[in-house]
């Protein structure tokens, strides 16, 4: 048993313990924090399972954004859970145990993890994505290639879902706001978080720079529009937490964000329309550079990744703003 197999077993064990601890925790604050830990562990597992891009995203989203979302929600609602009545525990537990047993029984028909002869590995599409893509696209990171080129329609759909969810949150959170008292907030933050403020301010440009690097480097290493957008969002969330909503809104007002949410989707769809105008199909990037199709592909992929990054970042920050400025109405 190599040390990597051992690591996989230990991490899976940690996941089980954490999941059980989450269901048992009465304090929702604790449950949300353990949820963040759960995400960190899954992200490490994704690295062991050779999915670095997924690990990248899960770390940024699960451990970062979701935890922040849940904790903000708890700040706006109740952070203590009522005890679960027995009449709900027993049937639910029974269903869960039976379903687990059923799934484990069914799993014997699955090929083993890592089986090189499994249908997934022998299907002809595997070869298309891994070998032919190198001639078609010249993008070493096949995940980015498949995401942005082969399955470009699908990704456009996903971006529209994110757009819709963002708009949904903004609409749900219209209404009463916390009365803003900028001077008092600033005094409080300066007194309480002096060191954190200095460090956050120093780190902020590097975080944004790193997000840009992730966006532009996505064709050669782990990264891309989704990951970059989330890192941008995390940077602005950090800044908002340490300097207050009023300060960050001077740089990136809500009005601009709402426009940016749409701009990203429009860039993506616009690339599709542009390729159609050039005589190709929707999102057929070869048309950008007919003499050198793979050059056109690289340009097209980069453009849509920028669109994705803008929408994801704007949605994440806009959702956070609208939650954090929500007035508590009782």
């Amino acid at each position, binding site marked *: 048993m190599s040390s990597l197999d051992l690591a996989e077993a230990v991490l899976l064990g940690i996941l089980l313990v954490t999941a059980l601890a989450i269901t048992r925790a009465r304090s929702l604050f604790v449950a949300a924090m353990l949820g963040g830990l759960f995400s960190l562990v899954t992200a490490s597992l994704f690295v062991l399972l050779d999915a670095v891009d997924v690990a990248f995203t899960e770390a940024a989203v699960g451990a970062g954004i979701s935890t922040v979302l849940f904790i903000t929600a708890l700040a706006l609602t109740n952070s203590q859970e009522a005890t679960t009545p027995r009449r709900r525990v027993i049937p639910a537990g029974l269903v869960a145990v039976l379903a687990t047993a059923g799934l484990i029984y069914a799993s014997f028909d699955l090929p083993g993890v890592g089986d090189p002869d499994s249908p997934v590995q022998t299907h002809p599409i595997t070869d298309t994505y891994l070998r032919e893509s190198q001639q078609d696209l010249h993008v070493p990171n096949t995940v980015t290639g498949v995401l942005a080129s082969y399955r470009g329609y699908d990704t456009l759909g996903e971006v529209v879902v994110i757009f819709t969810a963002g708009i949904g949150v903004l609409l749900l959170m219209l209404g009463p706001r916390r009365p803003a008292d900028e001077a008092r907030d600033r005094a409080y933050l300066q007194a*309480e*978080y002096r*060191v*954190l403020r200095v*460090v956050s301010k*120093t*780190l902020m440009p590097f975080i944004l720079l790193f997000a840009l690097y992730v966006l532009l480097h996505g064709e050669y290493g782990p990264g891309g529009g989704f990951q970059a957008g989330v890192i941008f969002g995390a940077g602005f969330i950090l800044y908002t937490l340490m300097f207050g909503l009023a300060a960050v809104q001077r740089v990136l007002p809500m009005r601009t964000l709402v426009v940016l949410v749409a701009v990203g989707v429009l860039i993506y769809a616009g690339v599709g329309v542009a390729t159609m105008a050039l005589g190709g199909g929707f999102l057929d990037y070869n048309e950008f550079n007919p003499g050198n199709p793979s050059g056109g592909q690289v340009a097209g992929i980069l453009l849509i990744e920028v669109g994705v990054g803008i929408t994801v970042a704007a949605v994440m920050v806009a959702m956070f703003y609208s939650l954090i400025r929500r007035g508590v109405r009782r």
Partner: protein
Amino acid sequence: MIALEVASSVLLLAGSLFAVTGGIGLLRFPDFYTRTHAAGLMDSAGAVLILLGLLLLAPDLGSGVRLLLIAAFLLITGPTATHALAHAARNDGVRVWAERVDKKR
């Protein structure tokens, strides 16, 4: 080459020692503030020693630079986070172990 590998092994082992002892301290120390001490040690000393050990094995410039960036980042954020936590805990009235002992007497 062998000298490099030996040096990296020594650093990795030292870092591992910090990681494990820090973990034990985090679990066994009697109050929050002493636990911050254990956590701070494993976050800064343990992490940086392991990263330096890896640095000696780095095959190219790119991974070396990244390792240094990670180490610098951890060195800045680790102590900051620990400090902020201890500060907030103190303001919230989390008591030091010795104070609790005094109360009991």
